[in-house]
Every structure is written in structure tokens, then in C-alpha cells.
């Protein structure tokens, strides 16, 4: 945020022409709010607004968002059927927006969404780290 606000980097929001949506990771959002008194809901959305023309929120979102199913180490426990099933609601919510790209700022969520999208018939969905989106939008020189 600091880099964009202070003009240390410039980003071009016209490069991605489709519709994007944003997933609130449990740890940066709801759990940060409950444990530390501040959930990081608006900061990533501000960055997203700088990097794409069109995006919509998932429903439900922010404090009420549904976990993607990749948290708590579930990508590594071997209980994969349960994990894939867990992700069904998140995938339905993404599908309902009609977005071509889901932006996430979390390694676990990214791994889970990338891993299960095929299973839910959404192989074309682009799963993007928030910082990857910024890097893609960088204007150099």
C-alpha cells in the first residue's frame, strides 16, 4: 500500500480486462479481528482497486466469509476428500460472481483454490496472489 500511495511504484489497472473477485483469508480477516482487534479487510481491497478496473465482493465476505478449506494445515494432513468437500461453498460463491479471477493474499488459500478448481469444473479460474497482481500491473520506467 505504502509503495502505491507514495508513488514508489506505478500500476496499470487496464491490463486485466475481465471481472475479478476477492477472498478474505480467515487469518488476515476474521481471526485477526477477533484476536488482535483489526481485520485486514479494506487494505487489500484498496490495492485491488488500484490494479483492476472491475471487481466484485463475494457473498458472504469480510467477517462472515466462508473458509476455503485450505487452512489449519489441511493441505498437508492427507485428509484430502474432506478438504475438497470443505471447499464446495467457496467455489459456489466464486461461481456466483461470474469472475474470471480470484485474488487471495494467503499461501494456504491459494494452494487450496488452485488444487480444487478443476474438481468443481472451474479449471479456467485464475487464482492470483494479491502481490502477484501488483507485480503483473507494474509500470516500469
Amino acid at each position, binding site marked *: 500500500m505504502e509503495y502505491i500511495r507514495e508513488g514508489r511504484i506505478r500500476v496499470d489497472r487496464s491490463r486485466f480486462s475481465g471481472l475479478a473477485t476477492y477472498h478474505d483469508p480467515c487469518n488476515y480477516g476474521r481471526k485477526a479481528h477477533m484476536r488482535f482487534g483489526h481485520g485486514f479487510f479494506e487494505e487489500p481491497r484498496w490495492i485491488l482497486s488500484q490494479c483492476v478496473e472491475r471487481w466484485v465482493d463475494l457473498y458472504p465476505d469480510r467477517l462472515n466469509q466462508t473458509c476455503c*478449506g485450505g487452512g489449519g494445515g489441511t493441505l*498437508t494432513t492427507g485428509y484430502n476428500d474432506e478438504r475438497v468437500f470443505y471447499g464446495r461453498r467457496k467455489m459456489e460463491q466464486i461461481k456466483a460472481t461470474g469472475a474470471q479471477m480470484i485474488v487471495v493474499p494467503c499461501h494456504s488459500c491459494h494452494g487450496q483454490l488452485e488444487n480444487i478448481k478443476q474438481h468443481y469444473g472451474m479449471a479456467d479460474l485464475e487464482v492470483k496472489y494479491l502481490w502477484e497482481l501488483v507485480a503483473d500491473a507494474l509500470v516500469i520506467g
Partner: protein
Amino acid sequence: MTTPIDVATLRSNDRPRWPFSQDVCMTCGMCACTCPVSGVDGFDPRKVVRLAAMGLEQELVESRWPWICTMCGKCEQACPMEVRIADVVRRIRSLRDRAQVPGILHKGLQAALETGNNLRLPKDDFLFILEDVAGEIREEPGFEGLQVQVDKKGARVLTTIHNKLVNTHTEDLKHWWKIFHAAGESWTVSSENWEGTSWGYFTGDDDAMKAMAGRILSQMEALEIDTLLWPE
């Protein structure tokens, strides 16, 4: 979990004094309704809270339930009594014999504690991968001057590395490095103990979490750095 509970076995007076308010549960079921995996394997958060409140945590420790739950906290947010359900689950995870922790969670953590990263990746290999990826970025227009300076004293930002980024996902190392380069940031990576994940968070191992976080702090002190990027 299907056998009737023998009241005589309940240990309501000597159950662990956990600070998670599990005893004030009203059994309303809000948590069970909101959980995306309620019903899987018979799991739901209300059952977890009730078993813990009745001192039957050993049944929970032996079950798969705490490992199917992602500790996302949605149940907790719905709970009218503010029971810290995710913390109850994490505490139950911590009571599992370490050799019985499912999958690679404890093995990865042990590797990190012993070698500084979950993969047991030797330092030379790690440094080779960083330089290799930096070389790839330098081939892109506008990034010709990109440098990865390891252990740079007095840098402004220290960044940790998720082990998958020096394993199967090296492409994803590039994004932050490009942003740093474009911003003219002074940044660095540590050559030792660079692991960004802290799987003690998942296994309920507080001592391991302290050790992992402590290492990052010591690096910051040794390199005189006041800003940390810890995206994991």
C-alpha cells in the same frame, strides 16, 4: 463417539482449566450450523465444545475431527457465548502424540527446528535457487538490474520464504522481488532459518512457534532491520 456416556466417568471437577470458556456453552448449535464441514465424519463444533466441557477430551484427541476442522473461526464468530472454539480445537491438536500428528505437519516442523527449513534444504542449494530465479527475472525488460542480496546488514526489509517457493513454486518467488525492485526497496533474505511457515500454529505446538518467531527476530536484530515481510 457412538457409545453412551457413563456419567461416573465424567471429570467435571478436575478437567483442564482451559481459558476458552467452553464451559459456558448453551448448546444452541449456532456453531454447528455455520461450519462448512459439519456432518463430515460426524464432526461438528458443538460436539467438540461439549466433549471438552465434560472432560472427555481424550476422545477428541484420538479422533480425526480436530484435523478436519481448519480453525477458521466462523463458529466462534457465530457463538453468542464467545466460546473460543478454534482455540479449543488447537489445544486438542496439541494433545495428540507427536508421532501421530497426521501427514507431514510434525515432520516438516521437526525439519524446520533442526535445519532451519521444512525441506531440510541445504544452504548452497537454497542460494543457488535464489540466484537462478533472480537470473530469470533479469531477462525480463526493466528488471535487468535486479539483485537478491542475502544477509544484507542494514537493509530496510527482511523477508521470509515459504518453503514451497524454493521447491515446486519458484515462479511465485518473483512477484515480491519485482515489486521491491520497482520500488527501489532495500531488502534482504536470510541465508539460514529462512522458513516462513510455522507449522506449530497448526499442530498446537507453542514452543515451536516461539522458536521459529524468535529466530526471525534474532535475524532482524543481527542484521539491524526494523521491517519484516512475513507473508506466510
